[in-house]
């Protein structure tokens, strides 16, 4: 079965102790967030947004197998 690919950026890669992982998941980003916070409780206090297949997304968007989901803390480039 195909999985979703999750990418953790910035401080989130430290909190989750990984940069990427694959998960069996189908549902909304909101549901995914609940799952991730159960897995990594320290995520709950972090500010971040999601991108879904490289587009900034909202929590109501649906994720399906094969999708790329990224957790993006506030940008600090420059």
């Amino acid at each position, binding site marked *: 079965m195909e999985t979703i690919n999750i*990418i953790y*950026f*910035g*401080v989130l*890669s*430290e909190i989750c102790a990984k940069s990427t992982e694959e998960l069996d998941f189908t549902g909304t980003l909101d549901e995914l967030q609940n799952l991730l916070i159960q897995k990594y409780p320290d995520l709950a206090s972090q*500010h971040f947004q999601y*991108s879904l297949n*490289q587009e900034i997304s909202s929590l109501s968007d649906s994720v399906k197998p094969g999708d790329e989901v*990224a957790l*993006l*803390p*506030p*940008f*600090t*480039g*420059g």
Partner: protein
Amino acid sequence: MEASEYLIQGPLSSAFISGILDKADKKQVGAHAFFLGKIRADKVSDKRVVGIEYSAYDNLVTKAVQIITSSLLRKYDDLTDVQIYHSKGLVKVGEISLIVSVSCGHRKQAFAAMEDCVEQIKANLPVWKKELYDDQSHKWLEK
């Protein structure tokens, strides 16, 4: 993940500026402005910054740069070219992490477009900085 042509491993150099100038329009550009972001040896409590480790979401950087560039070209009718390069990985104190180049017919829009471009990069480029300190510790910056 595909590498972004706008992200350069390690520090940027003045050779980039020469390269941009060599390729620049030789007929219609009267005002060419550059912005360089550099790493400061800031003091944070009793530690000193020795460098910044940048990470980036390559694919999204490519899209963000293209969106910024086209929005500027729409907004400033005297603007003929925008170039953006950002480092990823380690950039040490004194080195360059960002180069922005804007070319205009005349100076007024060059000033405005350069500032606008840098502010859009700060707000919209998916890049994250981890400050590295002289005691080997580090901190992901939040803003």
